[in-house]
């Protein structure tokens, strides 16, 4: 399933991209949002240094300058200076619970952590140790220790961390993706089958895509029933036409039979025999119309069984022309053959193709009672993918606006105007025969706006015996 793998690939790529983006976004957020809080004020270490610098010894007493005092006040902090012996030599707002003298052990303890739960910071002063204390619970103090190895391998570790993150993202996305795909695959298959209009699609309507599956199922059911209805209707129509034409045959037999008997009857007056002849000829016309109607309707609904074999159209062309000439074609009609690429074969039904060619020639003869020149051409198209069979005449042709709908059936709703020129089922049949051979019929006016030019276009049979554009 090419499509599903593509979906999975897209999904994984998108997930990884999103993961990396999230990672970077988080780092930035960490730097800008979380750790900026600490640096809003001067850091405790900075303040201690400032206080230590601001404390000046004047004779025997100490004097803190304005700036440092202000700083301490702002932070609600206190300060003291421890002398060499561990006694407080100077203080500023020293809380009552803080002792006044310290041993070496005490100093070592509080210098790193807390002094009586006050977070304190120390700095060197030329007269001792400066200690600044903040209010209780205002600062958390932690001790960080790093080995040099650890520091030097930090970049590598960060890269490793990133890689692990990437791998994890990949794993998660693949797992989620495949789970999703497993759920989607039957849906995709179902939709594909739906498009192919094969047998009905029945999907499992459980799981996260349950409602979607249900929709596909019902769409398939609707499609199936519509196709069935359409087929039934086509068949009914075709059967109806076949039935009608069958039922017409018996009465028509009687009409033809008795009319031709009367025509040959020597006792009847000439006038009556002539009239019987008209009845006979019209009956024969009706006969051919009935069989044409049957064939056209079968072609229309694709119910005509095709007997396909490789055929050279030039052979059929000569056969048709010969038949016309042998059956006494009037001298007013001149038929000219221009056949090239005679070796080319198409896959076709010989009887139908003969019928089509014969219909085209007959069409030119019937609609040009004053006589005309009929030219039959057959050759490959320029790109050698189609074989063109052209029948054109120098007759009166067909009006431009009628050309488009002349291949529609008489009773078709696609035909806007009623038929005026009395064209029969000939051209509609040719169009349908061409279509049944995966080809088409193109009608146009002749080169000098006179006459009719009918082109049948067929796909050419390639060397390996298959039709080029699609299978039959």
């Amino acid at each position, binding site marked *: 399933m090419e499509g599903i793998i593509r979906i999975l690939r897209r999904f994984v790529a998108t997930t990884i991209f999103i993961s990396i983006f999230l990672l970077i976004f988080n780092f930035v957020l960490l730097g800008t949002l979380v750790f900026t809080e600490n640096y809003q004020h001067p850091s405790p270490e900075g303040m201690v240094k400032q206080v230590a610098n601001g404390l000046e010894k004047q004779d025997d007493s100490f004097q803190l300058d304005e700036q440092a005092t202000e700083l301490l006040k702002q932070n609600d902090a206190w300060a003291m200076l421890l002398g060499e012996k561990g006694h407080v030599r100077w203080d500023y707002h020293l809380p009552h619970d803080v002792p006044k003298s310290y041993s070496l052990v005490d100093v070592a303890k509080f210098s790193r952590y807390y002094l009586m739960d006050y977070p304190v910071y120390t700095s060197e002063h030329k007269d001792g140790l400066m200690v600044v204390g903040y209010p209780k619970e205002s600062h958390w103090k932690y001790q960080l220790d790093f080995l040099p190895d650890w520091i030097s391998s930090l970049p590598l570790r960060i890269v490793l961390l990133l890689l692990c993150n990437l791998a994890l993202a990949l794993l998660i996305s693949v797992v989620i993706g495949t789970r999703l795909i497993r759920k989607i695959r039957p849906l995709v298959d179902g939709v594909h089958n739906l498009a192919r209009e094969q047998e009905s699609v029945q999907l499992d309507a459980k799981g996260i895509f349950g409602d979607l599956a249900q929709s596909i199922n019902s769409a398939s059911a609707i499609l199936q029933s519509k196709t069935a209805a359409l087929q039934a209707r086509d068949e009914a129509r075709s059967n109806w036409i076949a039935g009608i034409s069958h039922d017409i*045959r018996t009465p028509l037999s009687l009409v033809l039979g008795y009319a031709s008997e009367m025509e040959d009857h020597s006792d009847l007056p000439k006038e009556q025999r002539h009239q019987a002849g008209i009845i006979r000829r019209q009956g024969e016309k009706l006969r051919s119309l009935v069989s044409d109607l049957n064939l056209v309707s079968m072609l229309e609904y694709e119910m005509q069984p095709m007997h396909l074999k490789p055929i050279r159209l030039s052979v059929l062309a000569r056969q048709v022309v010969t038949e016309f000439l042998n059956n006494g074609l009037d001298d007013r009609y001149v038929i000219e053959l221009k056949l090239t690429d005679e070796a080319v074969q198409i896959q076709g039904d010989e009887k139908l193709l003969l019928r089509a060619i014969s219909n085209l020639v007959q069409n030119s003869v019937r609609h040009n009672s004053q006589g005309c020149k009929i030219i039959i051409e057959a050759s490959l198209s320029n790109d050698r993918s189609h074989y063109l069979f052209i029948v054109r005449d120098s007759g009166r042709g067909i009006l431009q606006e009628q050309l488009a709908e002349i291949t529609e059936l008489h009773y078709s709703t696609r035909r806007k105007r009623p038929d005026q020129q009395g064209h029969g089922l000939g051209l509609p049949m040719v169009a349908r025969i061409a279509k049944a051979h995966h080809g088409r019929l193109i009608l146009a006016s002749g080169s000098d706006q006179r006459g009719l030019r009918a082109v049948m276009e067929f796909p050419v049979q390639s060397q390996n015996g298959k039709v080029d554009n699609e299978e039959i």
Partner: protein
Amino acid sequence: MENLKDKKILIVDDEPEIRIMIERFLRKEGFFRIFTAADCASALSICHTGKPDIVILDVMLPDGDGFSLLSSIRQFSETPILFLSARGEDEDRLLGLGLGADDYIVKPFLPRELVLRLMVILKRVFSSPVVERLSAFRLGEQIIDLDSAVVHRNDKELPLTAKEHAILVKLYENQNRIVTSDALCQAVWGDDSYGYENTLMVHIRRVREKIELDPSKPIHLLTVRGLGYKLLVKEIR
């Protein structure tokens, strides 16, 4: 040939008008021993008792179809059978002929056609069993004997080669009509004979040398440009 007219004919059709009409035509043609039946059962019983010489059979009958009736008749008789049916699809025709019918006519039909086809079958089946011979015919000065593949000309005998003979037979079968070169090639070299047109021209030339006084100005074997050839036969012996 007159004795063909006293052959017994059975017409099986469920339409009474059709039966009457066919019977009428056949009587006019001189047949007088005509039976009719409207369904399979009565047709079978007439076949058993009357032993008709030929049966004209409709396909759709009230108590079965003509195809199965044909099969039942074939079980005890080789009577020639001609189908006359309103079912004109290729499949029906092929089925009928495949089952062993002698001909298949689709309604509506012209009575003359029916009588002609009937006569062809009767002639084939009942004429005296002479060895079928190919004709001999006269073309101007020449007499062409297709049976022995010889052209008689001024007391000389010009033998025809196999190909020349095949060409002349095909042309003679379609005398006075154009035969396409494709059809001639197929008759001589069989199917898939595309590309033999030039060879055919050579053979035609040789045929002309034997049957034409002036082969360059043929008067019997004419070329129809772009289509094929035509054999003009005026006298038939």
